């Protein structure tokens, strides 16, 4: 998921990659850095999203070299959208593009399976997101502080990991702002909720 705060965006994800019911990787990193201040949250097919983020990272790097500027989140999102839309039959990729740029500040874009690109106040994705839609609708506020956004993201992620069998492991977060990126790691035994509910 991606939750904006005052001055930037927090992106957050669990770490489970599964093949059917088998956990292929219990400590995956689903938060991919596309440029200095832009991250992508990957969901859906791991192979497809890895290939897509590699392409967008390459294009954004070329763009920076050509223009001499940092790319905007909007550019990254629309590059990703183009790739997914033009290959929609072959791909199964749900991606959230979030970050900070000097033009628009913090922004969050979600790109759906069909290749629609939506700018949203906050975004969630992946199989676990359905379990926390209500929680986030109730507790999300605009202009939170970085700490509040991080805490809410971890809480929602933990609840999704408790209820969704395809989610689990550890919680990774990245806070992105004008100052740069700040990574956080929450081990699987220190989740704010779960791995089993206490009742």
């Amino acid at each position, binding site marked *: 998921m991606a939750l904006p705060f005052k001055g930037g965006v927090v992106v957050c994800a669990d770490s*489970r*990659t*599964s093949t*059917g*019911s*088998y*956990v292929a*990787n*219990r*400590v*995956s*990193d*689903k*938060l*991919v*850095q596309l440029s*200095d201040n832009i*991250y992508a949250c*990957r969901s859906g097919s*791991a192979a497809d*999203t*890895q290939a897509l*983020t*590699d392409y967008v*990272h390459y294009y954004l790097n070329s763009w920076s070299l050509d223009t001499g500027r940092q790319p905007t989140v909007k550019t990254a999102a629309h590059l990703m959208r183009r790739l997914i839309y033009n290959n929609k039959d072959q791909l199964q990729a749900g991606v959230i593009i979030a970050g900070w740029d000097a033009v628009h500040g913090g922004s969050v874009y979600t790109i759906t399976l069909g290749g629609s690109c939506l700018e949203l106040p906050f975004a969630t994705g992946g*199989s676990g997101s359905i*379990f926390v839609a209500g929680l986030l609708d109730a507790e999300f506020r605009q202009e939170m502080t970085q700490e509040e956004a991080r805490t809410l993201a971890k809480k929602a992620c933990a609840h999704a990991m*408790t*209820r*969704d*069998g*395809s989610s*689990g*492991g*550890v919680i*990774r977060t990245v806070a992105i702002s004008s100052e740069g*990126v700040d*990574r956080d*790691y929450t*081990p*699987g*035994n220190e989740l704010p909720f779960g*791995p*089993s*509910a206490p*009742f």
Partner: protein
Amino acid sequence: MSSNQRTTRPITTGTSVVGLVYDGGVLLAADTLLSYGSMAKSFNTPRLYSIEDRILVGASGEYSDLQEIIAKVKALALEESTTSSMESIYVERKLPAKSLWNYLRAVMYQKRSKQNPYWNDVVVAGYDEQTSKPFLGTIDKLGTTLQENLVATGFGAYLAMPLLREKWRPDLNEGEARALLEDCMKVLFYRDCRASARIQLAKCTSEGCIVSEPYDLDHSSGWNAPSMVRATGDLDGDRGS
């Protein structure tokens, strides 16, 4: 004429049951998670039952079928203990675990033969007073029976059995047996999408059966290796995993 209904796929499920025979008894373990497809429906659902404080029955697979099986098993045990027979007036003879195991074999096979199985892998454990030996056996949804020192259903067959085969000895004491099972359950929690860290242990010895309350495994050492903490998604990593 009623139409024929049959089970085609499990809906509400429990995952692996793991068990071993040790020196003096038999120990079973199972987690207490009930899954509804990929959703975790309930976190405190026991799947190991003690029958007449003497026989343990547990199963993985469709939970409603397990409830049916336990109802049948309890009915059988009640009938055995309350119905008089010539033998039982003069000799106190309790239902042996092996007999219950064979009864369940017949039940499972009959359902399978009507193309409508109980969608479970059942584990039966007990202590045979006649031979003074622990008993451990399984019955699958087709009615196949196996009597073994080491059993594991579901994902446990792939992930726990190799660990059990490596570490098992016939002279394990209860503490070692428990540690081995907890290790198996921890691996299953890490690698099975339908498993949880809350487990239940059940023991059967010559003194009878005890089923523990559900408790949480300690997996605090399983998440702090540097390779796990390292962010592979950043620009200086491989940007994906």
